[in-house]
């Protein structure tokens, strides 16, 4: 064990320190197919949102959350194979976002609007 070996081990261990708890997150289901990107809710309260992205198509897909400009990536999950579900948990501040499924891992994707914090908070 030397310093060179410790460095990559540290890099691999780093994400564990940066984990976000998803137990109290708002759950949103996403279904991605070749032609559709169905998001079960288009609003959520401010805070953690867990997107359960299921690939119901037959191509590999990706799911992105962009800022309102539609260009700045807020979060993404890549490499979701057919029949698989991957969860993307992200803490969102109040504002308008753009969701996108990218079947075939290319292009601008099938986009939709997602509003955070606008829903009446109890």
């Amino acid at each position: 064990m030397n310093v060179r070996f410790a460095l990559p081990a540290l890099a691999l261990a780093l994400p564990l320190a940066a984990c976000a708890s998803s137990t109290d997150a708002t759950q949103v289901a996403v279904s991605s197919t070749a032609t559709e990107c169905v998001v079960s809710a288009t609003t959520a309260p401010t805070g953690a949102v867990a997107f359960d992205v299921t690939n119901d198509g037959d191509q590999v897909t990706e799911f992105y959350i962009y800022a309102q400009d539609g260009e700045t990536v807020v979060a993404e999950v890549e490499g979701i194979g057919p029949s698989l579900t991957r969860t993307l948990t992200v803490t969102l501040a109040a504002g308008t976002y753009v969701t996108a499924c990218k079947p075939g891992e290319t292009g601008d994707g099938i986009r939709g609007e997602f509003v955070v914090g606008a829903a009446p908070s109890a």
Partner: protein
Amino acid sequence: MFANYLIGLREGLEASLVIGILVAYLVRTHRRGLLREVWIGVGAAAALSLAIGAFLTLGPSSLSFTAQELIGGILSIVTVALVTWMIFWMGKTARFLKGNLENALEKAIAVGSGAVVTMAFIAVGREGIETALFLWAGISAAGATLAPVVGAVLGLASAVVLGILFYRGAVRLNLRVFFQWTGVFLIIVAGGVLAYGIHDLQEAGVLPGLNNLAFDVSAAVPAGSVHGTLLKGIFNFSAQTTVLQAVAWFAYVVPVMFLFVRMAFRGSPKPQAAASPSSAPALTR
């Protein structure tokens, strides 16, 4: 299932080829004793990746996007540094072989066991977490369908087979030719890893220019195609390459290739091995 197969192939190919080259290198320089270290590095990276993947998939926590991209970026840059270092072992070896200095080889390219473990660990670990997350997602879906996880495992197995075939071919080559051409190959691979890391950092917002594309050939090289998978898996070729990625690729590949070719294809440490160009045509053996 075929799409999941291609993901497995893509994720495993680069690691498999780099390990194949590393093993061929050790075997051909009579360092079989260090093979154990290769498998320690591979095993440690695979086990750690699977454990982290399981923790993130089955536990109550998930990986934040920024952390994920940061890991991708950091590991890519560490990989480029290590592979570059490996490339210059090879250049040095080819140079000594030209001068028929195989006895001097031992001292010139002494490789520590720590270096071998690290190289193997990083080669597998770089995409290990991503691959593990994908595998665990497949296992989680196994209640509904086994197809994704079977496809992914077959894809990874195919990557390993290609690595073994690459190794078999590599050990048959003339030794000097082996070091020269694996070096050239690894420079292109490392350039791709660097560009991949740059893209991760662009997505994380650490570097600008995510939407400033140098070219977009995704119509000709779709990600889901076999040729797209092989180009992505071996060279990290991205059909939508940003200007910054392209600049980084050339800024790495051009000078490193120049230095490597000068070292491995021409230079020789002993003057008598380098015949002067004017007398070369007269030399008949």
